[in-house]
């Protein structure tokens, strides 16, 4: 038993990355409950918040991959079991639309100086501050610098160039496929569609309405480009998610991919990667020369429940303790932090370049998750050769309209 306990403790120590030493000296009494997704930077934040678990203050922190469903339901309850929740572009909109988020303007004004709250951390809808963001993530171009130099290839900035480079790299024998892509049918595939579709300059909705606009020429153009790109990928592409593509890269099987910035640091992980030091990061390719990169920017942040039963003041202080400058400084490379104390490095170069070149944020409408779901569920039929592009877009459109009608977004 003792041995098992020791092993468990040792494992727990390994899992929690660099411990934060910032002492928490928040006074008061009360209980604050937090729910969030589970990944390294959130584990760091959770550890920092839990340091306040002393005296009369009790902090409960639940890290779970199923945070989205749980947050949606908990926040809708008359008395929310959580005071604070973590979420992103896609979570905040439906909650805000249903009036379930507590605006934090008063608290931000009160504690702006004490916790060095920066304007660039505030998510504002209308006049209200609904979330405090701490990190960003985006997909951008990962490429094998060594192979590009060997074949004397310039880094592609548009998708036409990507196709040309892919054609050239077909001759390279050390790799199996020139391209990788997070094309797993479902959420991932729809995300890639959104990235490219938005970069064509088209709108998701018909102006001034909630009616879909992607069953169009631009939609077909997007799908056709995706199909062309797929010709340079593994035949398994429609079943490969972010982790699988990351592993393809690490194993030296592919030379280029539009991959999440959060995976950049994994390219240099000697224990996993055969290509450590050989991968570089650039902005996501655009559809037209000089146009916006085909990617969307995602933020992650914390927001407060309208129906919370605790003390908002205490909850806010605990939240800011987790998002403090000290936490960022002590864990600089854990993610792309939003605070100005963060020192951008090699791993954030691609996301930075994409943001500078005008990549749009992922849309923040409440009905967007239904658009995303409808696309993810249907466009694979075209890419797998089961339907025409128009047929699959019509199915995606129909699925969205049905779902949006039931939720009252379309009358």
């Amino acid at each position, binding site marked *: 038993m003792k041995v098992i306990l020791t092993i468990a403790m040792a494992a727990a120590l390994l899992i929690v990355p660099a411990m934060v030493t910032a002492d928490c000296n928040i006074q008061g009494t009360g209980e604050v409950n937090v729910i969030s997704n589970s990944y390294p930077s959130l584990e760091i934040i959770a550890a920092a918040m839990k340091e306040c678990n002393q005296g009369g203050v009790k902090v409960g922190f639940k890290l779970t991959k199923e945070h989205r*469903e749980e947050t*949606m339901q908990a926040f809708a309850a008359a008395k929310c079991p959580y005071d604070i929740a973590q979420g992103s572009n896609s979570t905040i909109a*439906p909650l805000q*639309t*249903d*009036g379930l988020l507590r605006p934090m303007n008063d608290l931000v004004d009160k504690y702006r100086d004490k916790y060095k709250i*920066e304007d*660039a*951390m*505030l*998510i*504002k*809808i*209308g006049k209200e501050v609904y979330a405090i963001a701490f990190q*960003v993530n985006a997909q951008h171009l990962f490429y094998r610098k060594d192979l590009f130099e060997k074949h004397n290839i310039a880094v592609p900035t548009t998708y036409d160039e990507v196709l040309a480079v892919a054609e050239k790299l077909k001759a390279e024998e050390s790799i*199996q496929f020139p391209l990788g892509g997070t094309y*797993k*049918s*479902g959420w991932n595939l729809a995300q890639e569609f959104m990235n490219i579709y938005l970069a064509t300059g088209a709108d998701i909705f018909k102006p*001034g*309405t*909630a009616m879909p606009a992607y069953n169009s020429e631009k939609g077909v153009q997007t799908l056709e480009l995706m199909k062309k790109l797929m010709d340079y990928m593994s035949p*398994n592409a*429609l*079943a*490969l998610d972010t982790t*699988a593509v990351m*592993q*393809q890269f690490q194993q030296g*099987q592919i030379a280029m991919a539009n991959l999440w910035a959060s995976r950049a640091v994994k390219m240099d992980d000697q224990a996993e990667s055969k290509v450590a030091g050989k991968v570089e990061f650039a902005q996501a390719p655009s559809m037209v020369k000089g146009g916006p990169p085909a990617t969307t*920017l995602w*933020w992650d942040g914390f927001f407060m429940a309208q129906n919370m039963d605790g003390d908002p003041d205490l909850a806010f202080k605990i939240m800011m303790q987790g998002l403090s400058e000290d936490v960022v400084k002590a864990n600089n490379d854990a993610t*792309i932090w*939003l605070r100005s104390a963060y020192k951008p490095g090699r791993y954030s170069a691609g*996301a*930075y370049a994409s*943001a*500078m070149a005008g990549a*749009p*944020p992922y849309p*923040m*409408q*409440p*009905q967007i*998750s*239904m658009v*995303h*779901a409808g696309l*993810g*569920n249907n466009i*694979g*039929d075209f890419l*797998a050769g089961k*339907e025409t592009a128009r047929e699959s877009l019509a199915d995606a459109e129909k699925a969205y309209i*049905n*779902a949006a009608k*039931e*939720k*009252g*977004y379309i009358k």
Partner: protein
Amino acid sequence: MPRRHILTPPRKKVTSNKPMLSAHLVRSLYSKSDRVRNFCMNPETREIAMNLKNFLAFVGPSVLAMVGLIAVPLLGVAYLSIHSSHVETELVEVKSVVPLFGGLTKTTIEKVPQPVLDENGHPIKVWEYVGRRNFDTVADPGGLVEAVRKDRSKTAEGQPTSFRQRMYGIYRDVTDVNFWGALEFTLLYAFITTPFILVLGFILAMLVNNVVKWARGPLIFCSLLPHIITPVVGSLSIYWLFLDNAIVAALLEQLGAGKVYFLKDAFSIRTLIILYGVWHTTPFAFVILYAGLQTVPQDSLQAAEVDGANYWQRIRYIIIPHLTALFSFIILIHLMDAYRIFEPVLVFGSNLFANSLQYLTYYILNFEDNYYKAAASAILTVIGICILLLPILRRTYREQKGVA
């Protein structure tokens, strides 16, 4: 065994040239209904069989648990499934500010649904009774009719179509409707895996039953492992085994089979999911059948042996009939489980090549954020399971009735 063979005197009743008949006789002697009848008629055991108080005390707690944990939630889900609710929204031009990077922010102004507020400033919530609307949108009977009725007399090039082309067209369009596509693979999975797990489970049980005693424990433990593993972990392991350059693909390449891509089309993905199902559920059938094998009456086996029944005849006429009830039990449980297949579908590229009803429910709940429609989808799953199990339940009911 041979020693007993000598000791057991041949029975006169059975003529040696009719071993089949004797097997039938033996089987009927030990049939379940007879045993139960004896139990109830015997004055010594009768009292136990009739004691209602004991019966209630024994069954009561599980009935209570079933009402509390199954019936009440099911009623709740049924209630949700005929309702719908949402916050009243209107499109309002909203300016939103989000951070980009390194201190930069992006401001967008667009029309976004915003809540309509009542006089107290609270969002107006619409709660309505919708009858079968949720069921209609999930099962999409309109889409099904449309898919079947669609005009297929000519191909895209204007050529007349053959019967086969028309049938394939109907299949393609029907399975393109979410619910029916999901139903197709769910049933396919349930019906293909069932015979495999019965046969393999039985073979495994017979093998373990015939090895020396000390080896049985470890063998049972190892055989049970696939069933102990959580489905999502099991599915992930299979996915990881068959990815690009994963162990299986790499091994096949080494063996000269060339590059094999297991996740590239419906056929190979479906085969993998079915293989996973067989691998995962066979131990369940095995352990039940192995336990059943321990209760096979040894004297009937010996009697049959004396009568000259060979190994296969003993299996066919004594062991298998003895295990019939267990086979139906396994089919019952496995069909229920198979109808709820979820994890492998989630792991293997979701719904493109192989969809399932349980995945559909998850999808509605998770991506459409529609609890009411998800409830309808769940109720449809329950109804589907009931329909699927009806023949087996009817048979069991008849058997029981025959007893009384």
